[in-house]
């Protein structure tokens, strides 16, 4: 592609709306941004994906310890001790992050009686609308109806959340059972330790395959977000984008008169660049691990 064509196309690309048929060519100064994720939520995601990448890389090396790449990787870091160390280290960090998150939910939902934690449009708990959205979305895939109007968290995002939540409980519990096997054997029968490895490795594989293929594509790599949805890094998206992606939330925001509180300025340039570097690195590592996993499966 000649340089002039490429550069001529860039501005258009930058303002190209997602899922929208209306091209918005407003100058950047007038573009308003809506805050979608708080700093705390962004940090939580950052801790989550950083530790997950390390846990996945080290875990896969153990799971497929017979494969060529695993043995090479082990040699590179001077054997297994290092791999296990990082696996356990990241497990501890992730456990801590998980506990902080649970503590926050309990504090906000149970003690402060904050609305919208356990039910309502802002809750992560599935509701009837999610079922309708799922059916409607599938209908839209097949050209059988209009696209559903999503709220703050769409059904696949709730699934992502609960998959991770359930995964952390299951993988975490089985992992600690193996780590502190003699202690856990006080309450569990011996064969449960056998089961722990089966559960830990299968659930881990599910998480890895799910995140590195389905979550990546659904959230980042599908045409409307390609190559990456930056909102989890910058915390904000343009008002237009927000309106198109979550029309129901947008309407509710206007209705409840909360738009002023959520309107924010554009993310600083450094944050966008930083997010790009971090985000693409994460996606690249994830895809590499996905390929290694699949290759180990195929090689047997």
């Amino acid at each position: 592609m000649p340089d002039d064509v490429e550069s001529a196309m860039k501005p258009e690309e930058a303002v190209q709306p997602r899922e929208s048929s209306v091209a918005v060519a407003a100058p950047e100064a007038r573009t308003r941004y809506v805050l979608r994720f708080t700093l705390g939520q962004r940090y939580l995601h950052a801790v989550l994906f950083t530790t997950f990448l390390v846990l996945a890389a080290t875990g896969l090396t153990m799971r497929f310890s017979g494969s060529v790449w695993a043995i090479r990787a082990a040699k590179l870091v001077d054997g297994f001790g290092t791999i296990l160390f990082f696996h356990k280290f990241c497990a501890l960090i992730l456990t801590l992050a998980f506990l902080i998150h649970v503590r926050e939910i309990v504090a906000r939902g149970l003690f402060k009686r904050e609305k919208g934690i356990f039910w309502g449009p802002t809750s992560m708990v599935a509701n009837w609308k999610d079922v309708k959205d799922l059916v409607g979305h599938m209908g839209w895939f097949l050209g059988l109806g209009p696209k559903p109007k999503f709220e703050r968290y769409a059904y696949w995002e709730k699934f992502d959340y609960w998959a991770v939540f359930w995964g952390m409980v299951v993988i975490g519990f089985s992992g600690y059972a193996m780590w502190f096997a003699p202690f856990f054997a006080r309450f569990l029968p011996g064969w449960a330790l056998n089961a722990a490895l089966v559960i830990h490795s299968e659930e881990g594989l599910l998480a890895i395959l799910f995140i590195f293929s389905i979550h990546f594509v659904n959230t980042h790599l599908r045409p409307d977000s390609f190559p990456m949805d930056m909102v989890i890094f910058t915390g904000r998206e343009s008002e237009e984008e927000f309106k198109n992606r979550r029309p129901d939330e947008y309407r509710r925001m206007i209705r409840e008169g909360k738009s002023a509180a959520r309107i924010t300025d554009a993310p600083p340039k450094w944050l966008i660049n930083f997010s790009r570097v971090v985000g693409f690195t994460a996606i690249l590592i994830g895809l590499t691990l996905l390929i290694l996993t699949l290759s180990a499966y195929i090689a047997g």
Partner: protein
Amino acid sequence: MKTVSSLALAFFASGLLLVVPVRSLHAQTDCLSCHGDSTLQDASGHSIGVDGNKFHSSVHGSLECSNCHTDIKGYPHPDKPAAVQCETCHAEEASALAGSVHAKASEPSLHGAPNACLNCHGSPHQIVAKTDPNSPVYPLNIPKTCGVCHGNAAMAKKYGLPNVYASYIDSIHGFAIGKEGLLVAANCTSCHGSHKILSHRDPQSSTYRTNIPATCGSCHVGINEQYQKGIHGKAVAAGNPNAPVCTDCHTAHGILEPTSADFRMQSTPVCGNCHRDKFSTYRDTFHSQLGLLGGYVETARCWDCHEAHEVLPASDPNSPIAKANLVKTCGRCHAGANASFVGYQPHANARNRRLNPALYYIRLFMNLLLASVLTFFLLHTVLWLVRSRFQQVKSKPAGGKNA
């Protein structure tokens, strides 16, 4: 430089002048008056000089030259004296050698030496006792001596010799000999014998499969006792040729320190050569997954639980894997191991419904979960991708980055 012919000519000339008859030679000094010259060479350029002092201090120092060079009765003597026959005195060694793998090597043409004995025992006029550190067959020198042939890649290839010097000298035995100068460490002859070295395929050989435990056991008495009590030793004694002997796990020449990482890494699959199902189920466990990658070698290997030499079945109350001993056995690594902990099955087979039903169904459930979640979302994602792309193209009919 003087040569034999010019010397002979000189003697011949003086003999003519003095009219002295052919002299008989008895004392070493007579021979050394010519051969004492270290630069003396025969017609084909081989040195025929003899260092008188070294000869005197050699094991043969008290002998007359003619005791070995029997065809030389006096002077002048034939230009080409007959080859010395060591077996005249060393009959036992010679007959042992004749029946050995080195019988062929005794053909003089093979290595250029006029006599096979000299290949190992060195210069004929300087042979010292094998207890003398200068002897090529002194225990610390033997590996190097054998290595002249068995450590020479070109020679090994040409004659089909086992080229084992390199792996031996890096082994625990080779280290003890070569680096520590430990006289009692096994050198080549400790296992193979010296003169009557037989092929390991010969049932008479000390390195024949079923003779190996006794051969190694001549030094490793305690280990051999344990081995003989174990199931493998009993099987070998009962004539089972497939039961493992020392070298199956430890190898023959490149024997490693058994606690070393390399040994622990290399020897685990050896047990799997026979115990295939047990090895396969071991591979499914954390012990193996950790252990395969190296660097964390303390994870349980076969012999950590089963013992290395006194391997006994679980039904034997002396076995470390007998039910009553499990807490102690697992407790060697797992501090705090208790009765419930040792209910862990180190060879569980999650693929076998009959043997491990609970594990089988857990694995089945996990697999179904994996398959259903991934299948649903894969379909969901692919449909979504196609629809989004379709929408994108439709809404941007002309130009656009992907049109």
